[in-house]
C-alpha cells in the first residue's frame, strides 16, 4: 500500500477524534505564535524605550510581554495533553482492530515470531507518531508561517517577501531534502537491522544448539560482523543527514539579515526593523520544525503501510460470519453428527494432497481413532474438523450443515480439543486452563487436570493454580506442557472432542494411563476423534481408521484389525514385539 493511501487510512481511523486533534493543532499554533510575539513585543518595547517616550506608551507592551510569557507555557501544556489523549484513544482502537483482524483470519495464521511481532508492536505506534509528531506540529508550523508573513506584510511588503522565501526554504525545500536523505538512509539500514534482529533471535533461542555443536563463536562472529557493518553504514549516513540541520541554522540567520537589509532599503522605521529581524529569526526557527516532522514521516512509512494493509483486510464481522437467515447455528446439545464426504486438502499446488478424498462418519457419541504413519494426513484431518483448514474439495458437515457455514466463533462450542503444537500461554496454570471453559470452578479444574495426570504437580507448586508457566511454557517440561494442554481440552469438553496425539512426549506407561483416564473423563454422549501414532489403548474405541497418504486404507475395531493382514496388524506386531522385548527384560 502506498504511503499516501496508508496516511488516508490513518485519517479514517482518526475520524472519531478529529475535533480533539484539530483543537490540539490550534493550541500548538497558539503556542508558537505566543513565543514569536513575546520576542517581537519585547524588541518593540526596548527599541521604543530607546526613543524615550512617556512611560504610559509602553504600558500595553509591558503587560503584553508578561501575558505572552505565561500563556505560551499554558498553551503548550494543554496542547500536549489534548493531542496525546486523542491519539492514545485512537491507538487503543488500532491495537484491538489489529488483533481482531489477525484473530478473524481462518486457517493457520502465518508464523509470526520475534522480529515480525516486535515490528507489529512498533508499527502500531507509528500511527501515534504520525499524528503527534508530524501532522499536528506540521500544521501548526505552516499556520504560524502564514501569520508571520501576513504580519510582516503589514509593516513592509518587501521584507515580507524575504521572510516568505526563507520560510518556504525552511518549510518546503529543507524538509524535502531531509525526506530524500532519510529515505535513502532507511532503505540502506533496514535490511541490516532486520537481519540483526533475526540473528539475535537465533543466538538467544538457539543458544543450546549452538553451544553443543561449537557453533556459538561462528554465529557470534556473523552477528557481530553484521552489527559492525550496520555501525559503519550509520556513521557514513550521519554526515549527510545533519547537513540539513546546519543549512537550517544558516537559513535562519540569512533570512534575518536579509530582512534587515531590505527593510532598511525600503525605509522602514528603526524600531520596526528590529521587530522584523527578531520576528523573522523566530519564525524561521518555528518552520524548521517541519524538517524533523518530515524525517519522522519518512521513518514511519513502512510501519504505517503494514498497519494499513492489515486493517484493510475484510473487517472481522464480514468474514463469513455475516448472519443471514441461512446461517446455521450451533444448538446447545450433548451430541452432534459429523460426516466427511470426499474431503481433499492440498497445501501446495502440485504437491501430493494431504487428504485425498476422505470419507468418515462420526455420529454423536462415537469414538474413533485415526492412526497411520507420520505424514499420512492425521493432523490435517483434525485441523479440517475444527475448521482451521478448509477442504479444497468435498465437504464436512455438522448436523447436516457444511462446517464452513457456521460462524467461526460458534463452531468451537461443538467441536474442539487438543490440536498439534497446542500453545501454552505465558500466564498462570489457571488462566491457561480457563481458556477451555472460562466459567469453570476449582472442582472442574481439578477433575480435568487430574484426568491429564497433572494435578499432583499443581498441588506441589507453592503457587498452586496460580503458578506461572513461563515464556512459551518454558518453566514446564515437555510432558507437563502436554498434560496442561490436554487438561485444557478436557475442561472445554466439546461434544465433538478432537485429541491430536494427546500423550506425545510421555513415556509408555504414563501415556497409557493418561489416554485411559482422558477417555474415561469424556462424557458418554460426546464423540471423540483420537489421532495417534501409538496403537496402545485403542481396543475400547468404536472404530479405528488407518490413514496412509491421505486415504483410508483400513478401518474396523481393534479386535478385527489385528486379525487381518495389513498395516495395522504389522504395526501392532512390531509394537508388541518391542513391548515384549521390554517385558522380556524381566526374568
Amino acid at each position: 500500500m502506498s504511503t499516501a493511501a496508508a496516511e488516508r487510512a490513518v485519517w479514517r481511523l482518526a475520524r472519531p477524534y478529529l475535533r480533539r486533534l484539530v483543537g490540539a493543532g490550534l493550541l500548538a499554533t497558539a503556542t508558537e505564535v505566543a513565543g514569536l510575539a513575546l520576542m517581537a513585543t519585547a524588541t518593540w518595547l526596548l527599541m521604543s524605550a530607546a526613543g524615550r517616550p512617556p512611560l504610559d506608551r509602553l504600558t500595553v507592551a509591558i503587560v503584553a510581554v508578561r501575558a505572552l510569557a505565561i500563556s505560551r507555557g499554558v498553551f503548550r501544556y494543554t496542547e500536549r495533553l489534548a493531542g496525546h489523549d486523542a491519539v492514545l484513544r485512537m491507538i487503543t482502537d488500532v491495537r484491538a482492530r489489529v488483533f481482531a483482524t489477525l484473530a478473524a483470519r481462518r486457517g493457520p495464521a502465518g508464523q509470526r515470531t520475534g522480529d515480525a511481532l516486535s515490528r507489529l508492536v512498533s508499527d502500531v505506534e507509528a500511527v501515534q507518531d504520525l499524528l503527534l509528531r508530524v501532522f499536528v506540529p506540521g500544521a501548526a508550523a505552516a499556520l504560524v508561517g502564514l501569520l508571520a508573513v501576513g504580519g510582516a506584510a503589514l509593516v513592509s511588503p518587501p521584507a515580507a517577501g524575504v521572510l516568505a522565501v526563507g520560510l518556504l526554504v525552511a518549510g518546503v525545500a529543507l524538509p524535502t531534502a531531509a525526506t530524500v536523505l532519510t529515505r535513502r538512509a532507511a532503505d540502506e539500514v533496514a535490511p541490516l537491522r532486520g537481519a540483526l534482529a533475526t540473528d539475535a533471535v537465533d543466538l538467544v533461542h538457539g543458544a543450546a544448539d549452538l553451544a553443543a555443536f561449537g557453533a556459538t563463536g561462528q554465529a557470534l562472529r556473523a552477528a557481530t560482523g553484521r552489527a559492525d557493518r550496520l555501525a559503519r553504514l550509520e556513521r557514513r549516513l550521519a554526515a549527510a543527514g545533519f547537513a540539513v540541520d546546519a543549512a537550517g541554522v544558516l537559513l535562519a540567520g540569512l533570512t534575518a539579515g536579509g530582512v534587515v537589509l531590505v527593510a532598511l532599503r525600503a525605509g522602514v522605521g528603526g524600531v520596526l526593523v528590529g521587530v522584523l529581524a527578531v520576528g523573522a529569526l523566530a519564525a524561521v526557527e518555528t518552520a524548521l520544525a517541519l524538517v524533523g516532522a518530515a524525517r519522522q514521516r519518512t521513518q514511519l512509512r513502512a510501519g504505517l503501510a503494514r498497519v494499513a494493509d492489515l486493517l484493510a483486510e475484510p473487517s472481522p464481522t464480514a468474514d463469513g460470519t455475516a448472519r443471514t437467515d441461512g446461517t446455521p447455528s450451533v444448538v446447545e446439545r450433548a451430541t452432534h453428527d459429523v460426516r466427511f464426504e470426499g474431503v481433499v486438502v492440498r497445501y501446495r499446488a502440485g504437491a501430493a494432497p494431504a487428504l485425498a478424498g476422505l470419507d468418515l462418519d462420526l455420529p454423536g457419541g462415537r469414538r474413533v481413532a485415526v492412526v497411520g504413519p507420520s505424514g499420512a494426513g492425521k493432523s490435517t484431518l483434525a485441523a479440517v474438523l475444527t475448521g482451521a483448514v478448509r477442504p479444497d474439495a468435498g465437504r464436512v458437515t455438522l448436523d447436516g450443515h457444511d462446517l464452513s457455514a457456521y460462524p467461526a466463533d460458534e463452531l468451537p462450542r461443538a467441536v474442539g480439543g487438543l490440536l498439534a503444537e497446542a500453545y501454552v500461554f505465558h500466564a498462570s496454570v489457571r488462566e491457561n486452563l480457563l481458556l477451555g471453559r472460562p466459567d469453570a470452578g476449582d472442582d472442574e479444574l481439578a477433575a480435568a487436570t487430574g484426568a491429564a495426570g497433572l494435578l499432583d504437580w499443581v498441588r506441589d507448586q507453592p503457587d498452586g493454580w496460580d503458578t506461572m508457566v513461563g515464556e512459551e511454557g518454558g518453566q514446564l517440561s515437555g510432558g507437563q506442557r502436554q498434560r496442561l494442554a490436554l487438561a485444557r481440552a478436557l475442561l472445554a469438553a466439546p461434544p465433538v472432542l478432537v485429541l491430536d496425539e494427546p500423550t506425545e512426549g510421555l513415556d509408555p506407561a504414563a501415556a497409557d494411563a493418561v489416554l485411559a483416564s482422558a477417555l474415561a473423563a469424556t462424557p458418554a454422549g460426546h464423540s471423540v476423534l483420537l489421532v495417534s501414532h501409538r496403537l496402545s489403548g485403542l481396543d475400547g474405541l468404536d472404530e479405528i481408521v488407518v490413514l496412509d497418504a491421505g486415504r483410508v486404507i483400513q478401518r474396523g475395531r481393534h479386535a478385527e484389525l489385528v486379525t487381518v493382514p495389513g498395516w495395522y496388524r504389522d504395526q501392532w506386531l512390531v509394537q508388541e514385539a518391542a513391548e515384549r522385548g521390554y517385558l522380556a527384560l524381566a526374568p
Partner: protein
Amino acid sequence: MNRRPFDPRLLRRVPAARRDLAVLAALGGLTALLVVGQATALATLLATAFDGRLDTGALAGFVAAVGGRALVSWAQGAVAARAAATVKAALRADLLAAVGRHGPGWVAGQRAGRLATLTGRGLDALDAYFTGYLPQLVLSVTVPLAVLARLVFADWGSALIIALTLPLIPIFGALLGWQAQAATERQWRRLSMLGGHFLDMVAGLPTLRVFGRARAQTDVVRRMADGHRVATMRTLRVAFLSALVLELVATLSVALVAVPVGIRLLGGGITLSTALLVLLLTPEAYLPLRAAGSRFHASMEGLTALDEALTVSAAPATVAPTATPAVAPAGSGEIRFENVTVAYDRTTALRDVTLTVRPGERIAVVGPSGAGKSTLLGLLLGFVTPTAGRVTVDGVDLAHVDLDGWRRQVAWVPQRAHLFAASLADNIRLGAPDTPDAALATAVADAALDDVVAALPDGLATILGERGHGLSSGQRQRVALARAFLRDAPLVLLDEPTARLDTASEAVVLAATRRLVQGRTALLVAHRPALLADADRILRVQDGRVTELTPATEAAR
C-alpha cells in the same frame, strides 16, 4: 536504576567512544562562543538600524557567526551519530558475547524474548540519546556560562537575574523529573509486557481459535491497550507539568529582564545595543537547559536500554572461568557422576546422583517426564553445573575443562532442536561449515532425511523460515539427527530421538541410531520400548534419584 544523565560505565565499556565525546564537548564550547558573537553582532546591527543606518561590519559579523554555528551544529550532529553507532555496535557485541559466554541455561532464565528485543530494537533507542540529548547536555553547561560571562561585562544587573533564575530549571527539573522518571520506567516495563502479551496472544491464536476464544481475547487486548493509555496519560500529565514549569521559568525570566531594561532605557541608564544584547542573550541562556530537559524524557528509553545492556552484559558468569581450562578429556573416557545434586530455583532436578558410564556402554535412561532425565544430559553438555558434587571424565572435572573442546567429543540430539533462519544444509552442518558435500549427503541419508530433502523446492539449499518454519516436527527431529551423524563424536547423547516419529520411520531412525551408537558411548533418554532393546544398562530417574534398572528390579516393578 541509574538516574544520572550520563552513565560513566559507558566510557569504561566503550573506550572507542571517548574521542567522539571529547570532540562533542569541544564543539559545545565553540557553539557557546558563537552564540554570544551572533547576539552581539545582531544587537549592534539593530541598534544602528534604529538610527536608520546599516552597519555593514555588524552584518558581516552576524552572517559569519551564523555560518560558524551552522558548521559547528553539523559537526555536532555527525559526531554524535558516529558515537551512537560505535556504542550500539559495541554493546550489541557485548550482549551477544554474554549470551555466548553464559550459555543456554542462563539465557533461558533471562526471558529470552526481552534479550532478543534489547539486542535488536531496544538499543536503537540510543540514537535519540546520543544525537538529541548528549549535545544539548554539553550546551546546557557551556552556553549559560558564556552568556553570563558576556552579560556581567555588559549589564551585571541582568546577569544577576539570570544567574539567580537559571538554577531553578535544574532544580524543578530534578524535582519533577524524578517522578517522571519512575513513571517512564513503569511505562517501559509495561510496553515490553504489552509486546510480550501481543506476541503471546498472536503466537497462540490457533489455540485460541480452537476454543473459540480468539474474538473474546480481542476485548482483553483492548482492555490492555486502554490500561496502557490511562497509565501513559498519568505519566504525561506529570512529565508535561515539569515542561510547563521549566517553560514558565524561562519565558518569565525574559519578561523579568526585558521590562526593567526597557524602563532603564527610558531613563537613559543603558545603551540600546546593550539592552538588545540582554534581550537576545537571555533566552539563549535558558534554551539548552530546557531542550536538554525535554529531550531527557525522550531519551529515557535509550538510557533505560543502555542501563539494561550494561547490566546484562556485565553479569558475572555463573561459573568463574578457570584461568587455564584443562585440556578436554576424550569423549571415549570413563564418565563418573560423583554425588551430583542439581537444584534450580524452584525444584531439585537431581539429588545425590552417583554413577559410572564405562567407555562404549549404551545406556538407556527412562523415567516419568520432568524427573530430571534432560538435566542428566545437560550436565554432560556443560549447560548445567552441579550445585554439589562433580562430573568427571577420565578423572578430569568437567567444571574445569575447555568446554568447546569437550563438546567436540559429544553429539547431541535434543528434544526440540532449534532450526536457524538459514539453508537446510547450513542447519545440518552447524558448527562444521566446511563439511564436504559427500559427507553432508551421507548424514542426510543416515538420518532418513533424504526423502524430505527431495520434496523441498531447492533441496538442501532451501532457506528455512525463522525458527525452522516450514518443516514438521518429525522432519526437524531428523535434521537434529543429521547434525549428530555429521558430528561423528565418541559420546552420543540422545533426548528421546524417536518421540515425534511414527513406528515406520522410527524403525528407519532406529536402524540409523544403532549405526550411530556403534563403537561409541551413548546415553539415550528413551520413551519408546524399541530403544531399550539394545541398551547395555537401563537407568531409571525418578524424583531426581537415579537407580539402576536390572532385570530383577524391573520384575519387581
